[in-house]
């Protein structure tokens, strides 16, 4: 018994060693891009990385993670970043700029910046630190097999028949903290005193508070959740795959945010990184992302089919002007306190 166990452990350890050393073997020049998982990552690779590699011959290595984990990595690697370009959501983008890990986007090096709508360019004191790769919205997602009539209000989440099957974003999710503010508006609760909202949220019998968009998608797919807040990107992906899911914008509206591209300060391959961002800002890439993720393009003059237009965050006939965006400065200022209060008053109710 002893020898067999020991042999097994030795074999296990040496195998693990082989697997982990594989990553170190490639030494051709390559660009490391931080992006999200699931259908997001697939679309970014397909719509941006592939044409980029085709044009430049530079391989792209994907560093998969949510926006928040990407920022945590960037802060830890500040002195010598391993990431060249990073996609991060609105809100986290501002935090990253404040943390000093983001370099300016130079219109001379990234000529396609001039094709981007004003709403998709983020600048502070003359420094352009982020550019939008497309907008998405958070609406109500529901299981059409269990809920026959589309919900019309965010307040429907509190209906007793949905107990134990509700999915909401947790504060670890980049949409978690803004969701709290959004729900405060829905219930007419003062943003400065969120206590009444926490007791409302704490009273909800949720199936889960999802840490990532992927976790929410999984919950809707498995039937663990039958109603909840989810992004159009994840919901339409499920619907397109034939899952019995519906996505609706309730009467109080939906709020939108975007996935933004950033050039990392001190990146090893700044030139290639700028080329990569330039590729992402072409009409082809934006239209490809709209087609795959239903991201509302921030690039001007992108043509999409009617079917795609209907699923964009501003819906058929809408435009970028219709989006309800957030004041991220206010949200980021309260991020720590909202997280703390959520832990105490919602999770540990």
């Amino acid at each position, binding site marked *: *018994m*002893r020898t*067999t*166990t020991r042999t*097994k*452990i030795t074999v*296990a350890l040496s*195998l693990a060693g082989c697997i982990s050393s594989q990553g170190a073997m490639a030494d051709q020049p390559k660009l490391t891009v931080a992006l999200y998982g699931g259908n997001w990552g697939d679309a970014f690779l397909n719509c941006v990385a592939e044409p980029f590699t085709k044009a430049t011959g530079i391989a792209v290595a994907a560093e998969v993670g*949510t926006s*928040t*984990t990407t*920022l*945590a990595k960037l*802060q830890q690697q500040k002195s010598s970043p391993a990431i060249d370009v990073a996609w991060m959501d609105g809100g986290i983008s501002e*935090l990253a700029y404040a*943390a000093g890990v983001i370099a300016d986007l130079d219109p001379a090096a990234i000529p396609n910046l001039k094709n981007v709508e004003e709403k998709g360019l983020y600048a502070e004191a003359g420094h352009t630190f982020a550019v939008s790769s497309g907008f998405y919205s958070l609406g109500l997602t529901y299981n059409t097999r269990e809920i026959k009539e589309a919900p019309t209000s965010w307040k429907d989440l509190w209906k007793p028949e949905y107990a*134990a*099957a509700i999915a909401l974003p*947790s*504060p*670890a*999710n*980049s949409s*978690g903290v803004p969701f709290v503010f959004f729900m405060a508006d829905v219930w007419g609760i003062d943003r400065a005193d969120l206590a009444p909202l926490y007791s409302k949220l704490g009273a909800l019998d*949720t*199936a*889960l*508070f*999802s*840490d990532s968009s992927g*976790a929410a998608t*999984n*919950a809707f797919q*498995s*039937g*663990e959740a039958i109603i909840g807040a989810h992004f159009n990107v994840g919901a339409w992906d499920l619907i397109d795959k034939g899952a019995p899911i519906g996505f609706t914008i309730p009467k109080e509206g939906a709020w939108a945010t975007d996935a933004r591209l950033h050039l990392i300060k001190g990146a090893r391959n700044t030139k290639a990184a700028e080329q990569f961002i330039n590729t992402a800002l072409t009409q082809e890439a934006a239209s490809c992302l709209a087609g795959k993720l239903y991201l509302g393009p921030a690039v001007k003059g992108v043509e999409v089919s009617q079917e795609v237009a209907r699923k964009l965050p501003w819906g058929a006939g809408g435009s970028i002007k219709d989006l309800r965006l957030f004041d991220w400065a206010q949200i980021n200022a309260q*991020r*720590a306190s909202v*997280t703390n209060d959520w*832990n*105490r008053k919602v*999770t*540990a109710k």
Partner: protein
Amino acid sequence: MKRKTLAPLLMLFAALAFFAAFFLAPFAVVIFASFTQGADQAFTVDHYIRVLGDQYHWDVILVTFRIAALTTLVSLLLGYPLAWYLVRVVKWRAWRRACVILLVVPMFTSNIVRSFGWMVLLGRKGLVNQSLMDTGLIDTPVRFLGTELGILIGMVYILLPFIVLAAGNALAQVDPAYEQASEDLGASPRATFFHVVLPLTMPGIISGSIMVFTLAASAYVTPALLSGGRISVLSMLIFQQYSSVFDFNYGGALSVVLLIFTLVMVGLAGRVGSVRGSNQ
């Protein structure tokens, strides 16, 4: 003679260098962060006061260690008989080998995949609930996900091999002559087990339990997935501070608190083990 002492030292150096580079250095960064604040990195103990002066954190610490202790206990109750079966009952070597492989192979798969497996099994519409409903035992699905029970099931599954391997090793080392002597002297099988075999395998049980307990107390993936964000353990609070609030100072203090509590618990378990050992 000199060469004889040099070789172990060199081997020890490699281990120490590895330990220093991959544990001590990053840990020093965490400790440093936990005692500083602001851009000028001024010394402060505020983060610790904030952690320990707040009832909420004590509740989370209690949940964390309750889950870890229950995981250890259940793993022991399931693992020891399993180890006994493998070492004492199975006579056919090929079958024993197959059992050990079955036990170890899941460890090649990532925790995430295995925890996802449990999410599928334990969900509202999962296999467990469907079977219970089909047999008419329950009318509405039992809630496993998002409960301590769900986390416990996942943790026991993932950590059970450690107990089986440690206890199995200890059992294999017990000379059957002791048991024969005990039997010859008139002890019942029960008395022989409790007075001879169990004390002799105690070091294995203790080392297995310590492994399981420390891994369970610091586990992140399994509780994060199976709790659905409805229950917090200390590792999840740490992750939240590092990955979404970006307060590395407060997160660092939480990490140090988790480590110290775990070390104290392990130290206590070690004492229990050595007291038992000296009784032999």
